[in-house]
């Protein structure tokens, strides 16, 4: 049985958290994630979940308390946005270095300055090298389902790595959409019971966690094993996504394609922008242009091989980035990864960079249609092309 409801994205995530029913949630409210914490706190107060809710004084404390709980053998979660994620920064590396399978929805929001509360991906991109898995959601349905799957992925014995579930601030978090919720029992069955790899609270098996390794020289080895866990996650994300599909009907992979098979130009997008791009691709097709879409779900780990297979037949690929790297270079962060993936490939597309939607700047299908028409005309730009930016020649 599926319960269909009209909810905002934050409710969809809170509902996933209710069904997961973590042992501990330590969180601090920040726009646009606030409603997740509010709604989940309500569930705790109303006795709908047995979770221990820790109301902390900052996001640094939120992540610290979550780490402490996870090291104590609990299934622990938190959630945040933007400045909150930035304030957690040093703790993100501790969560991943301690191999604690914490799941954290992050509602993507721009980082200040100037102060802005709207969507872009600069917050989670700042954490791209922190050793966390990153799964992007196009809409509330995916935010709900990614949150459920993230638990399984993070806790997999070959992975044991924390995972972020990303959803776009306001566009997804505050828009009412249709979401199908699954019944508690099959969801709980899917998520399963948590068996921690280690716990500080087992007197039969005392251990020490968070040890000092600056003099004896094993640090490098631990980082190498984290990289291995990320490599393992590529397969695990796929397996968990397939199992989810068998159980609930929607199968997940590393990415999803739309009209890509015979595409002559393609766009790669993450998050809600993928929905906008899908509409634009259909419009381009109506205009006789063979356009396609690759919606990337998994940014960390980055599915290098799989993307080469999916895109090598396309002559031109435009990568839509919702953040900048400020490298002074020719492209955004997702573009950099894709170009790098293809560098040694036999057959490779021209890979062009677009940056859009910073600080919630509106991203309309028309922007992508115009960009697609330019590409179809063979007008291939160098460097970053900014979509929706106010420029002098506009």
């Amino acid at each position, binding site marked *: 049985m599926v319960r269909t409801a009209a909810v905002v994205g934050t409710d969809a995530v809170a509902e996933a958290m209710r069904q997961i029913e973590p042992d501990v949630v330590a969180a601090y409210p920040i726009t646009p994630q606030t409603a997740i914490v509010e709604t989940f706190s309500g569930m705790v107060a109303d006795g709908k979940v047995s979770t221990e809710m820790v109301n902390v004084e900052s996001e640094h404390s939120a992540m610290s308390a979550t780490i402490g709980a996870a090291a104590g053998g609990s299934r622990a979660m938190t959630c945040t946005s933007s400045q909150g994620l930035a304030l957690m920064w040093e703790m993100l590396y501790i969560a991943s270095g301690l191999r604690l399978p914490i799941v954290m929805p992050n509602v993507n929001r721009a980082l200040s300055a100037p102060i802005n509360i709207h969507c872009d991906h600069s917050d989670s991109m700042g954490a791209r090298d922190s050793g966390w898995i990153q799964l992007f959601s196009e809409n509330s349905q995916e935010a709900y389902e990614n949150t459920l799957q993230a638990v399984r992925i993070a806790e997999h014995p070959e992975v044991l790595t924390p995972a972020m579930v990303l959803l776009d601030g306001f566009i997804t978090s505050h828009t009412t959409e249709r979401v199908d919720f699954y019944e508690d029992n099959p969801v709980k069955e899917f998520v399963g019971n948590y068996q921690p790899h280690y716990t500080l609270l087992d007197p039969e098996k005392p251990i*020490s966690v968070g040890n000092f390794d600056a003099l004896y020289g094993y640090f490098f*080895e631990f980082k190498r094993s984290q990289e291995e866990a990320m490599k393992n996650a590529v397969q695990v994300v796929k397996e968990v996504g397939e199992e989810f599909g068998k159980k609930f009907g929607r199968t997940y992979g590393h990415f999803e394609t739309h009209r890509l098979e015979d595409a002559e130009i393609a766009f790669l997008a993450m998050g809600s922008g993928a929905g906008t791009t899908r509409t634009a691709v259909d419009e381009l097709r109506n205009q006789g242009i063979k356009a396609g879409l690759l919606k990337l779900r998994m940014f960390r780990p980055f599915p290098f091989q799989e993307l080469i297979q999916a895109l090598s037949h396309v002559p031109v690929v435009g990568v839509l980035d919702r953040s900048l790297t400020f490298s002074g270079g020719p492209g955004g962060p997702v573009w950099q990864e894709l170009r790098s993936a293809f560098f040694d490939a036999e057959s490779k597309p021209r890979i062009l960079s677009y940056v859009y939607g910073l600080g919630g700047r509106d991203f309309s299908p028309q922007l992508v249609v115009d960009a697609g028409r330019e590409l179809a005309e063979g007008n291939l730009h160098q460097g970053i092309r900014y979509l929706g930016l106010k420029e002098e020649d506009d």
Partner: protein
Amino acid sequence: MSQWNIENINKWSWRKHPLAAIIPEAGNAANYRTGGWRTRRPIRDEDNCNQCLICFIFCPDTAVKVKEEKVVGFELKHCKGCGICAHECPKDAIEMVDEAEAESQEKEGGNARG
């Protein structure tokens, strides 16, 4: 409980270490040499010492060795050289000396005190 076997740990590959750098045993602090950055070393004048044990009480580590209720020396594996024992000693029976000098005297087979 059996001791965690760390033989040849310096040569272990990244696959061999326990996940997340945990140490899978308890009570192991005594095995760690934490006094390596000491610049001064406590020397006790046995004749002047009245065995009041104030140094043992005040030592912020566990570096004052006591046997049968008597101070018998210092555990230099753990002593950081803070000098609190010397400062607190009511008989001024503890003196802090230069660590490098003490070490070179030891190497020469001289009268290593402490």
